């Protein structure tokens, strides 16, 4: 592993300064559970690692009833999943984050890192997409936002330019009568990478009979985590029926373009898209009904 230097940054400004002066030779480090493995295998290169974990904004997890949930890009999965606001208000996010690796990985890995690593199979990304989450990106000129569904551009690649880094993920305040769920298919019980993952969120009318809005996203069936906007739009104004849920799942399935690899065949993945979307929607609706 070819790393010459390490800096534990104390502020966002320090990170921006280092990234600007070192260009592509510097990389930010959060949990390191992907990055250190990639550096060791020469899949990525860095001469300077800038540790983000000692910057308060980067590790804070904070809920504000006006703005929503701030998750610092370097906050670990275990800290996120024991935060009271997250557990109470965002169970659909917890579904996904709890699935990333085992206990040891959860202690270190961040969802900022899960996003930046831009794996098509990343568990947190479909869940963040269905929650309408935004990425806060910092560079020399300040901070700007990118919606999570636009953050990944290819396997292992994201929208970040030289000199930029991910500061936080902001998840909006959840509306009334809202529910969300993420699930995946893996051949073992835990510690695995999704063959297919599916996330869904719904907002119901006050009587909880009709769907006011819905979002559906899939993992591991396209070069990037896939937001299937049309599947959610189909459900707008619809009654909650098995037929409508099945139709939305069929739309999601049609949007997928899976490949065959060691984890599963394209055919199996296509089948799973419909099954998992249906289950994600059903659980999201159940949560919205009991919300």
């Amino acid at each position, binding site marked *: 592993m070819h790393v010459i230097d390490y800096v534990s940054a104390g502020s966002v400004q320090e990170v921006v300064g280092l990234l600007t002066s070192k260009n592509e030779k510097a990389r930010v480090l959060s949990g390191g559970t992907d990055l250190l*493995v990639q550096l060791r295998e020469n899949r990525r290169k860095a001469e300077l690692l800038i*540790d983000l974990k000692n910057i308060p904004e980067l590790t804070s997890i904070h809920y504000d009833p006006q703005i929503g949930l701030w998750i610092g890009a370097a906050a670990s999965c275990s800290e996120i999943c024991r935060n009271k606001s997250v557990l109470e208000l965002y169970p659909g996010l917890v579904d996904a984050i709890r699935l990333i690796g*085992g206990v*040891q*990985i959860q202690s*270190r890995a961040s969802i900022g890192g899960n996003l930046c690593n831009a794996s098509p199979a990343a568990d947190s990304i479909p869940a963040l997409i269905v929650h309408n989450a935004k990425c806060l990106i910092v560079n020399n000129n300040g901070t700007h936002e990118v919606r999570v569904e636009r953050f990944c551009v290819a396997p292992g690649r994201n929208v970040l330019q030289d000199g930029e880094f991910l500061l936080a993920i902001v998840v909006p305040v959840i509306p009334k009568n809202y529910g969300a769920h993420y699930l995946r298919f893996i051949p073992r019980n*835990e510690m695995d990478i999704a063959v297919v993952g599916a996330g869904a969120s719904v907002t119901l009318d006050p009587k909880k009979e009709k769907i006011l809005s819905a979002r559906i996203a899939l993992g591991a069936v396209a070069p990037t985590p896939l937001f299937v906007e049309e599947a959610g739009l189909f459900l707008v104004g619809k009654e909650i029926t098995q037929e409508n849920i099945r139709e939305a799942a069929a739309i999601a399935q049609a949007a997928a373009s899976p490949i065959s690899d060691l984890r599963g065949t394209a055919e199996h993945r296509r089948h799973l898209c419909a099954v998992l979307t249906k289950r994600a929607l059903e659980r999201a609706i159940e949560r919205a009904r009991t919300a």
Partner: protein
Amino acid sequence: MNKKVHVQAIINGEDVEFLCEPRQSLLEVLRETLGLTGAKEGCNNGNCGACNVILDGKLVNSCLVLAVEIHGHNVTTIEGVATPHGLHPLQKEFLAHAALQCGFCTPGFIVASKALLDQNSNPSESEVREWLAGNLCRCTGYDRIVRAVMDAAQVQEKTL
């Protein structure tokens, strides 16, 4: 000659200082600089758990932590699990159940199990199995390990 960094940390309750290169993992430094060879290098990529240590109360793979990252932090390795008064209940129960064959994974399992019992003194079998999913053992088939951890929890409960 690569640049070396001075790191100060608490390891197994003792103040420790060492020099390391920024690229070196905590596992590498524990084993090769500090002579703490209990943590094992299995996969060196975060899959097997043989290198598990407890960092500020949290279970981590020491192969996925840089040694420079522990500056100012607190680490417990397998060498810090027993006390001068004797073995930890987990160590006694691993022996009593013969919960090992080749033994290579055992330090990782004991450290991981300690991290579990430190936060959940009476785990169910499924909680134990889920917690230990990040530790691989190719000999035992896991059953004896799970039983040893469950019994150690009972022993610990009685002595507290």
